[in-house]
């Protein structure tokens, strides 16, 4: 009797452990297929007109953005009975930010962490960088500094000074351009207004592998896989200080794609029915979240930019 009582807590620990992800310190939980806000009404004609006109100008008002990308592949964890030496789980995490300051400075940061776990092998790689640009008072030169910790663990700081023409070079160094990850997708979206007065743009897709092209595990067994994608973007209204033109700018966008195993092994005989799972198994996901802001970042403390490191003889 006593022995049974001791066993129950141990069993509980084991079950929790089995459900844990394969990557140490990986606490990322994707938002998944659930939208952040609901669309509660259609746009008015005036809102549509402002939004349509915003497409080409809205990014010009942005002063900062962050973009996080989290990718997980669980080919080993999802199908433990079907692994080979080539089967792995993989994590790729990246965080990027870009800020434009009032005193002619930008700062871009990027950190990347990759991990791949085979049965018996772990491969790790990390890097991070900070990239600064400072335009001189005459707006004729820009000095850029790259502070890099590369994937080998080496730390280097290098800078260079190049000619700068505000008319032709500003976009290259400073501007935030969300045309590819956001604006190019708007045409696919359902668009409406949220309770909070944000324009929402969303779309959802669903695809299931046809039987003839089922997911093939590395041991050759086949499974039916469902692929779901979700995209949402929210836009707030802004007003141009000088022209008083109204526009909608991006505050947040999120894209998510997941692959779910929804069947047991596909039978080798065509006439045999496929057994579908009541609870799908997550095979992979990728989530990309962008946050943007028009708020000023004030002046950057130029003294805080690290000085180049002299190479050792």
């Amino acid at each position, binding site marked *: 009797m006593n022995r049974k009582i001791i066993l129950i807590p141990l069993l509980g620990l084991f079950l929790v452990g089995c459900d844990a992800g394969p990557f140490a310190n990986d606490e990322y939980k994707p938002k998944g297929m659930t939208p952040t806000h609901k669309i509660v009404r259609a746009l008015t004609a005036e809102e549509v007109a402002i939004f349509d006109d915003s497409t080409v100008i809205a990014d010009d008002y942005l002063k900062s953005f962050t973009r996080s990308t989290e990718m997980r592949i669980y080919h080993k964890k999802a199908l433990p009975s079907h692994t*080979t030496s080539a089967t792995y789980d993989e994590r790729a995490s990246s965080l990027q930010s870009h800020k434009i300051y009032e005193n002619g400075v930008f700062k871009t940061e990027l950190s990347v962490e990759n991990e791949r776990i085979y049965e*018996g*092998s772990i491969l*790790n790689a990390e890097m991070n960088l900070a990239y600064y640009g400072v335009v001189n008072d005459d707006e004729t030169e820009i000095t850029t500094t790259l502070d890099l910790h590369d994937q*080998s663990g080496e730390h280097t700081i290098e800078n260079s000074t190049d000619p700068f023409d505000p008319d032709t070079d500003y976009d290259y160094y400073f501007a935030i351009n969300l045309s590819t990850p956001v604006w190019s997708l708007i045409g696919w979206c359902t668009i409406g207004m949220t309770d909070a007065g944000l324009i929402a743009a969303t779309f959802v897709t669903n695809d299931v592998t046809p039987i003839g092209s089922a997911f093939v595990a590395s041991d*050759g*067994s086949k499974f039916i896989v469902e692929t779901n994608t979700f995209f949402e973007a929210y836009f707030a209204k802004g007003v141009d200080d000088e022209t008083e033109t109204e526009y909608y700018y991006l505050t947040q966008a999120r894209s998510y794609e997941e692959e779910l195993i929804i069947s047991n092994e596909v039978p080798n005989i065509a006439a045999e029915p496929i057994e579908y799972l009541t609870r799908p198994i997550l095979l992979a996901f990728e989530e990309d979240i962008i946050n943007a802001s028009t708020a000023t970042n004030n002046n950057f403390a130029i003294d805080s930019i690290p000085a180049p490191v002299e190479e050792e003889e």
Partner: protein
Amino acid sequence: MRNSRLFNVLPLIVVLAGCSVTDFNPFQEDKYVPVGFQTESIVRALSDDEDDIFEAGITRIDDYITGLEERAEIRRYYSSYFGDYAPDGANDIDYSVSSLNIIKTYENNVKFATQTVSESVLNDYLDYTTEYVLKQWNYLPTPATYEVRRSMQVNDEEVEVVTFAEGAYVEADNYDNLFGYGAANYVISFEMGASAIGMNSSDEIIMLIRTSTYNVLNLARNGFVQVSNSFVNEIKLALYEPEDSDVPLYLPIQAREYIEQRAISEIYHTNEVINYLDTPIVIGFHEVINKWSSANNGDYDLEVIPEITEE
């Protein structure tokens, strides 16, 4: 009968938590546990300097390799695992080979190898083990001639010594073949196929190749079984600072090749649905571990080389 017993055991194996593969071994005295899928971990990429040293040093590797220890272990369990369904012919056996080959090159142009091999065969009507000891001397009887002399002993039989090869010796043409190890070519071909290259936590270069295939194994009695074949190759190179040069290089110190075959389904016949195993079972493997050496082996005592066995 053996087959039936095995499948009775399978439900028990399934409940072994956290274990997705079961080892199976009919050779009762076999203590060898393969390293298998386990490899060194890569914790970072090579720096530019490390990469430059590695690439520039590859062609010099053979200048410093003076020895090799090669261990090979092969197991195949078709007879006891498949029982009456074991494939016909040479595959209808359990098979085990353990081989250790120790090779050294000496300062006085002698390369001496000792290979000990134990080969076992097991099924319902065969159960025997053969021991081999093969020794080989590559040496120069005169400065302008070479000879490859071999001695072979099988079990407790008398040792037989023969001249395996001989001919004119020209250092530029024959040295690598007679006294070298081909380690540079090994590293080059490994690098070309590597799926991962990086550094371990001890600042040694690790290269990995991990691949797999799958196929249907044709069995007796019109039976089939699904199998997967896993391949794991790893090589480790350490920084070496030679006494005769200020330019360091990375020398290979160990390489391992592992091939494993797993049964992933129950035996089935034409028009039967494949039942996949919750716990795949290892039915054969092949593991070879090479360890290179750069030690100075001094001179070899030529008097030790045995005389040719008389007819």
